[in-house]
């Protein structure tokens, strides 16, 4: 009996450890990234584990920066953010939401610099500087623009113009310079965000045979470039770990990461 209990306890421990190994991802979520024309879109800022819709972190203080860039012009949106509670499959955490009216045609590059998040288990801070692009009318303007974030993934393929099976490529940059051999985590948004309920759908789209398929680890080449073949329609997140120049916050280690989200569609 005792043996069974300790075995069970061990198993639970292993599960917990494995669970925490999955990647944190800052999301800027909207349902559709390629629109025929301008309209008001919803934007949800959630710091979570997207493949499993697992533990959702408290984003805490208002983000340091949240803005959109179109035709090289920056519009501050930080005052428009409303704090909400986002429910994952295992907990709930503080997130933010807003709406934005897209006008005209072109690329709208949404950029988020969240407040550093303290990760107790690892005793470090994490700050994921995140980009997401929404296009209207198919008119390309800013998708390939380097915004000038301290940690940034600059796309080489349109993040909103991908078929399933296409390759998505990007360059990991630190203060504008490529980061050779950058370590990148890739995750599929596996549970549909229910934006009206500030929660993830319970149903998973796919099952991972093993942990390596939950958070896929890839590396950039010597020029900081990476590529990834997209196997399924939906949203995919790319996170370049420690891509930013800042390594310390409040006397503790800081992982300043660069995140970008891309959306693929099936050919049908």
């Amino acid at each position, binding site marked *: 009996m005792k043996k069974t209990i300790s075995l069970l306890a061990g198993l639970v421990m292993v599960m917990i450890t494995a669970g925490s190994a999955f990647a944190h991802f800052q999301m800027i979520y909207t349902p559709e990234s390629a629109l*025929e024309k301008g309209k008001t879109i919803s934007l949800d800022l959630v710091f979570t584990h997207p493949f499993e819709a697992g533990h959702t972190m408290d984003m805490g203080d208002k983000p340091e920066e949240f803005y959109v860039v179109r035709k090289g012009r920056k519009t501050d949106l930080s005052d428009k953010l409303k704090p909400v509670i986002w429910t994952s499959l295992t907990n709930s955490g503080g997130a933010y939401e807003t709406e934005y009216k897209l*006008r*005209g*045609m072109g690329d709208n590059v949404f950029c988020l610099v969240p407040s550093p998040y303290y990760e107790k288990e690892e005793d470090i801070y994490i700050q994921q500087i995140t980009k997401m692009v929404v296009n209207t*009318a198919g008119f*390309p*303007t800013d998708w390939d623009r380097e915004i000038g974030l301290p940690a940034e993934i600059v796309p080489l393929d349109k993040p909103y113009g991908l078929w399933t099976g296409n390759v998505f490529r990007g360059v990991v940059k630190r203060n504008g310079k490529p980061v050779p051999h950058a370590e990148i985590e890739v995750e599929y948004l596996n549970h549909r965000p229910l934006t009206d309920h500030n929660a993830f759908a319970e149903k998973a789209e796919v099952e991972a045979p093993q942990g390596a398929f939950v958070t896929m680890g890839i590396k950039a080449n010597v020029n900081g470039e990476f590529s990834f073949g997209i196997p399924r329609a939906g949203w995919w997140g790319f996170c370049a770990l420690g891509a930013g120049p800042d390594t310390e916050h409040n006397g503790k280690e800081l992982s300043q990461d660069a995140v970008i989200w891309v959306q693929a569609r099936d050919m049908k």
Partner: protein
Amino acid sequence: MRIRKTLITGVLATSLLLPAVAFAHTPMCSCFSLGDGTITCEGGFSDGSSASGTVMRVKDKKGNVLVKGKMDEFSEFTFEKPDQPFVVEFDAGSGHKIEIKGKDIAE
């Protein structure tokens, strides 16, 4: 005749232009009302190149020019909404002309 072919209006413009996106240098133009009595039109070419400098005309029903100007450095042209029915003309040369009817311009 070619002008006819590219005679596209308002909201329709966007959806009609979509199939043409694959061809480089297809002109694109979209107008929206800012709700303050002004209208802004944006133009460009489907490969992403700017339409800065393109001649813009706002005409009445009879074809009289009410306002004339050019796309600015951001490929935009803003004008005061006329009190009468009007048409916006984006004129980037032969075969590159788009007309948008005032009544089809939404906020």
